């Protein structure tokens, strides 16, 4: 076996960085699909309308709520990075990271409340 074992990774900031990275990857996978769906309008509004009605299903709405969360958390996490890198150093990074996740969850829940 090899010696390697580290357990410090469960720090809030490491989790924040991981969430930022995974949300970015998920959005990157989602985007082409999003563009293809919108591109249905080329064939006329009937194609897009069919797709939109398909997306009325509750499960799809829940997935959309997940996407809203991913977009918001990626943006707020990125904003936190821009603050670290461009403004004077400030402590309280863990609180900022937790706040970013919290705000994103709230926005996603509001979205779901409106559409479900």
């Amino acid at each position, binding site marked *: *076996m*090899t*010696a*390697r*074992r*580290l*357990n*410090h*990774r469960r*720090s809030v*900031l*490491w989790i924040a*960085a991981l969430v930022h*990275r995974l949300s970015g990857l998920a959005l990157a996978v989602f985007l082409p699909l999003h563009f293809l769906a919108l591109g249905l309008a080329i064939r006329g509004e009937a194609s897009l309308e069919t797709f939109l009605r398909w997306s009325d299903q509750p499960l799809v709405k829940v997935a959309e709520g997940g996407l809203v969360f991913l977009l918001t958390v990626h943006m707020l996490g990125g904003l936190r*990075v821009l603050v*670290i*890198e*461009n403004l004077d*150093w400030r402590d309280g*990074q863990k609180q900022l990271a937790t706040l970013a996740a919290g705000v994103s969850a709230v926005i996603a829940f509001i979205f779901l409340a409106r559409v479900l």
Partner: protein
Amino acid sequence: MSDMPSELTVSLWRGAEQGRYETYRVPRRDSQTVLDVVTFVQRHLDPTLSYRFACRVGVCGSCAMTVNGRPRWTCRTHVSKVAKGGRLEIGPLENLPVIKDLATDMREFFEKWQQAKGVFAPSKTRHDAIEQIRPDSAERLAADAAIECINCGVCYAACDTVRWNSDYLGPAALNRAWTLVNDERDGANVARLEAVAASGGCHACHSHQACQEHCPQALNPTASIAGLKRRTMAAYLRGEIKA
């Protein structure tokens, strides 16, 4: 006031990259440090154990190891603080090749220091007047906040980006580069900024801040690296350095 048994159960890494943890029983003593424990094993239980130390008092940086999963100075880590239920797991520092047991090959750490141009480059000779440096200038304060690094390697071992990106110069090298970027006497800043602006330089840092969390000197390489990002971006946009 100890809920600690009178004996510690200590697992030590034996071998090189491949090997195994071996268990030893070490008597518990007051004010015992992890370095005391390792030393006891080598002197009384197994003389073939290899490990590194020098000053024993937290000024040289030689004794850093992975203790219960975290990189620490073993001479400054009290057993009472880390040994839950009398158990300790001690391994070599991560992110560095293992020579034997608890001793790692630090060469890449120091080579990256050189690559980051973490070396003072004089701009005057003995025949010039001595440079007047105000200790409270913004630049000197920034350099002083980062200058106490003793190259122990703890930050390098703690950094996930070092683990994922073999080109990454690492927090210590970049932190030192930052102190020199802020040193008015230094004459090599264009080359230094280019060195840290290259692939594997400061821009590879994701601000996980494990370095800052683990630094035994309470330094903040994340902040130093953020400073380097600002300087290199400004220099690049002004055409002073090339990508």
